[in-house]
């Protein structure tokens, strides 16, 4: 497969930026998953879809709205009733799901080229994201593995917490560069490093 170009490239500047004299408190990276897939179950087929996710990824989704988990390579979370986002470092996830998620269970949409995944980590990650999104980022309200769908200035975003101080944000590829620039600006005052 051809090398996929990052939409962030013209604004992706590796190194430390902003007010980092007292230390870097934010790390920004692009995770560049090989696969990003959206799955949707027909009403009543949610359990079969969750079983299919386990078959393909080995990840057992916890119960509840927005539940999810990540093993560091593959990630999955719910973002709407009966709907899930799954990402994998490797390519080919959509093809693997297409074999298991039959038309009677639901749908598989390959978004690998449609979304860009940005990771924000560090002790000030919650604090920077709270400037963007009107949702509760505290650990009890937004546990590790869980996902949230929300918007920043009408740019739709799906956010998964992948550790206590780390979040993966999936945005439309066409909005990714402007979102990335805004995230860099918002991180300036605490000092950030692009890796």
């Amino acid at each position: 497969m051809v090398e996929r170009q990052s939409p962030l490239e013209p604004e992706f500047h590796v190194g430390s930026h902003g007010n980092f004299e007292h230390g870097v408190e934010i790390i920004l990276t692009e995770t560049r998953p090989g696969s990003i897939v959206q799955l949707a179950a027909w009403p009543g087929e949610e359990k079969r879809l969750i079983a299919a996710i386990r078959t393909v990824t080995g990840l057992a989704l916890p119960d509840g709205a927005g539940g999810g988990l990540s093993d560091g390579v593959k990630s999955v979370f719910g973002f709407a009733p009966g709907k899930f986002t799954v990402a994998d470092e490797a390519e080919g996830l959509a093809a693997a799901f297409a074999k298991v998620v039959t038309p009677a269970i639901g749908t598989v949409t390959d978004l690998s080229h449609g979304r860009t995944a940005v990771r924000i980590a560090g002790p000030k990650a919650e604090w920077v994201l709270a400037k963007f999104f009107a949702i509760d980022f505290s650990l009890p309200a937004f546990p590790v593995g869980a996902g949230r769908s929300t918007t920043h200035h009408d740019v739709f975003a799906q956010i998964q917490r992948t550790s206590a101080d780390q979040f993966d944000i999936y945005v439309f590829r066409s909005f990714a560069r402007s979102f990335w620039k805004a995230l860099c600006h918002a991180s300036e005052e605490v000092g950030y490093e692009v890796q």
Partner: protein
Amino acid sequence: MLITCPYCGPRDVIEFTYQGDGNRERPDPASQNFEAWNAYVYDRLNPAGDHNEIWQHSGGCRTHLRVVRNTLTHEISSVAFMRGDHGRGDHGSAARRKAEDKS
């Protein structure tokens, strides 16, 4: 104003799109009953108080919701998925029947 989405939890109203008065009852698309169509398009209860409304969580989980909002206070007394267990909400018809019973 906050709307508590049954899936996403409390969210700012900016994430939601108003989809209209929830008291309307749409006639069968093949219906030639012009009075029913006229009522569907134009007649509104316009209450000063609790109002049945349809909202979409367009900036979140994207589900359609039936919301009861007080038009005087903006207090939201109930939020539920439009789609019930069997794929169809009873929002409009039930609310209208209730309003008609009162009049």
